[in-house]
């Protein structure tokens, strides 16, 4: 049976971070109430018999709303969908907006994975990024999560921050690992148009390192984490063995997902589509963007996403979809040079070349 995941978008934050380009708003309770009503309606309406293998509640900041909302939403899902026994249910939390009580509620309603938006353990950096927490709150939040029984805890960290160096970063990693976390996502800071960070960079109010430098830190991070039992299974994701994120792997294997909420994307039965980013349009189901993913696009995505991951892509699947990749000269060349590696039916990218993956992917697309 093909895998199917559910993504639920909670577009609310206490404050917008300077680098954030996600759809999130700081709004009053009335709007929140209404939003959750609509969300429940959408969850009902899009009901399917398929089994769900993971649920991911992301944002925004899901933890900034009253836990009762999360409970209602999940109950709505439970009432309408069949869940796999080993389902992974993740919620994104900010360290400052969860206490033991809230985490207990999460635990009791079946959530079994917490993803903390930590970003950094340096208090000055956190402040500059517009984050509302500090290092102590991170430690406290992770400890509380463990206390209420969470076994699978992930933290998000940012690479490419102002004044970042490998020594400090390794120290932060060390401290986090000591808290017994199971998963780390280390994302490179992207400066996206329309964000406050973008104008700060333009106005030289912030001095970000060049990609080269960040990649250097990234590569050292990879080694450091490996020594500490965290293995890279995707370009930006590391975990202890067995704690890879099922939900994200689902994306990268081009499996299907249903996205609920404003701006949420779905990929279902050959189409990728998204809800409007506007509350009213979302309520009225207006401004949905549809895109048909045909064989060629599917091939492109299988290659593009697969090569980001340790497992790579299954060339038989590509060939079945109509692209004999072994006829591609570049592909042959990359295999010869050990830039691409073949193992059984699978092709994966030599991790030394993650930094130039875009160019390699382009060369082997149909």
């Amino acid at each position: 049976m093909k895998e199917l995941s559910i993504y639920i978008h909670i577009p609310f934050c206490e404050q917008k971070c300077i680098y954030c380009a996600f759809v999130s708003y700081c709004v009053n309770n009335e709007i929140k109430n209404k939003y959750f009503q609509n969300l429940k309606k959408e969850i009902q309406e899009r009901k399917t018999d398929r089994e769900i293998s993971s649920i991911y509640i992301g944002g925004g900041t899901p933890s900034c709303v009253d836990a009762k909302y999360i409970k209602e939403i999940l109950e709505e899902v439970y009432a309408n969908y069949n869940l796999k026994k080993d389902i992974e249910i993740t919620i994104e939390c900010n360290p400052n907006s969860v206490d033991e009580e809230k985490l207990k509620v999460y635990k009791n309603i079946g959530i079994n994975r917490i993803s903390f938006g930590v970003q950094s353990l340096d208090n000055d950096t956190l402040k500059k990024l517009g984050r509302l927490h500090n290092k102590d709150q991170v430690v406290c939040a992770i400890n509380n999560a463990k206390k209420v029984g969470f076994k699978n805890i992930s933290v998000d960290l940012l690479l490419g921050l102002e004044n970042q160096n490998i020594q400090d970063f390794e120290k932060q990693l060390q401290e986090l690992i000591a808290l017994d976390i199971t998963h780390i996502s280390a994302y490179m800071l992207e400066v996206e148009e329309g964000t406050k960070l973008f104008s700060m960079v333009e106005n030289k109010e912030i001095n970000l390192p060049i990609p080269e430098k960040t990649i250097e830190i990234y590569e050292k991070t990879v080694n450091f984490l490996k020594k500490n039992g965290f293995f890279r299974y995707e370009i930006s994701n590391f975990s202890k063995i067995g704690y890879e994120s099922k939900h994200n792997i689902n994306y990268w294997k081009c499996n299907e997902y249903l996205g609920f909420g404003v701006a949420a994307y779905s990929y279902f039965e050959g189409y990728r589509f998204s809800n409007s980013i506007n509350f009213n349009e979302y309520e009225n189901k207006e401004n949905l963007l549809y895109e048909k993913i045909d064989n060629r696009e599917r091939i492109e995505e299988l290659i593009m996403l697969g090569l980001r991951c340790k497992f790579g892509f299954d060339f038989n699947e590509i060939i079945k979809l109509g692209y004999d990749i072994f006829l591609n000269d570049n592909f042959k060349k990359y295999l010869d040079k050990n830039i691409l590696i073949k193992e059984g039916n699978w092709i994966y990218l030599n991790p030394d070349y993650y930094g130039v993956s875009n160019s390699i992917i382009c060369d082997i697309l149909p």
Partner: protein
Amino acid sequence: MDRLDKIRNFCIIAHIDHGKSTLADRLIELAGFVSKRNMQAQLLDSMELEREKGITIKLTPTQLLYKYNNEDYILNLIDTPGHVDFTYEVSRSLAACEGALLLVDASQGVEAQTLANAYLAIDNNLEIIPIINKIDLPSARPDEIKQEIEEVIGIEAEDAPCISAKNGINIESVLEAIVNKIPAPKGNSEEKLKCLIFDSHYDNFKGAICLIRVFDGSVKVGDKILMMQTGSVYEVTEVGIFLPSTKAVDVLKAGDVGYIAASIKNISEIKVGDTITNAEKPAEKPLDGYKQVQSVVFCGIFPVDGAKYNELKDALEKLKLNDASLQYSPEVSQALGFGFRCGFLGLLHLEIITERIEREFDLDIITTSPSVSYNVYKTNGEMIEVSNPANLPPTVEITKIEEPIVKVSVFTPPEYVGAVMELCQEKRGVYKDLQYLDKKRVELKYILPLGEIIYDFFDSLKSRTKGYASFDYEISGFLESDLVKVDMLLNGEKCDALSLIVHREKAYNRGRMVAEKLKKIIPRQMFEVPIQACIGNKVIARETISAMRKDVLAKCYGGDISRKRKLLEKQKEGKKKMRKIGSVEIPSEAFMSILKLDEE
């Protein structure tokens, strides 16, 4: 004689952007035969490229009908391309007229092309009517400009009409001036036929047609005509005039401007400047001023997508239909595959053709660095013409190489004389003469290798003289020179399409600059790529493209997937336009960019 009194043949000459096309539009609106709407569609079609390049490529002549003092006058407007590449064609268009409107911008004043064009008109004995345009601009200073025209060009300008072509102010006064000041054509319709071919067009139904001015005699359907320079004879199938669409008439007589169709299959058979006469009663001698037009600049043109060779061939064939001066023949390059070696009148002509191929035929092409044609004398006594540097024989087989040289005259205000002389020296020029034409204008004469002219001379001259200098050149034969071939090696592999022929003294410098430029333009590859410039086996310059810079590793979930896939698709499209030399990917622009080394 009554008939001739009612005809005026004229052209408009101007510096770029002084409003030539706009004035033409207004005249056609006021006195033309086309409705405003049709006219726009017609004129604007060809305008895009012209506007960008600031030149007129080719505009159909137009007949205007103007009532003045209760008399009907026929005014024939003949357009002229305004660039040095087309000087000969311009001179033939001017030769078809009795007068010229010299259009000057009321705030800019006299500029380089105003001078060059005005002198061309004076050389052709035309009556020149200065016209001050754009008087509606706040910065307009018509009185000063009139004085400037008188001082700098030396023609009477006091009564010059002050107009705004854009806003239609005073256009009537231009028409009046044309009637009053431009002499009526002379000539005798009873004499033996003499027509000047000043242009040619290709018409899908009529074949190649001659655009002509009748000086003497008359021509009608059924006449046997003789092209006096080529010696070809044809039977006239149609004669007519331009309104500006073609309109057949019974006969064209002395003084008239019109066209002759004579089942001429190929436009190459029509030579601009040639004289048409009646084959049965031929004139004793042709009109003066004929020259055989020759290609002086050559380059390779290749399709980016090798499979589109035939489409490129079609495009060249179609362009050739309307442009006899375009030459081409098939060529094969190791680096670029199958394509064509093409010959042009000059760099601008080259640029126009390549742009038209891209725009009108929607083909992506690669053009190689322009070259001139060299006479290469080989040890076996043979002489070959080499216009593709890749074809230069090995040094041991060459006894000497001759390069084409040109006589150049530069008009410049005195304050730039030093700068112009310096430029000519740099370009291996030999000084010939310097003359003060008046207080504001100096004429400098130099002998220069043509190869140096096509390499950035025009742009350098303009930038060093703030656009005031204009120049003109004529081919004046070949001269032996110490020339060498510089080859470019990428990752150790020679790229034939990047080879250059240069003077030995400049080889080192040029090799270094090309290597630097290639370093800038070739994107980083997966591995380090050395670039070498070599003469024979000797490396004279070396650069290295370092390995590819790493990307930010962006995250990729849900909605990012489509976005990222589209980015990669776009990146892949970009890569398609690259050429591979061995394992190195080179963007198409690299081949042309060699020519623009001096820009930085």
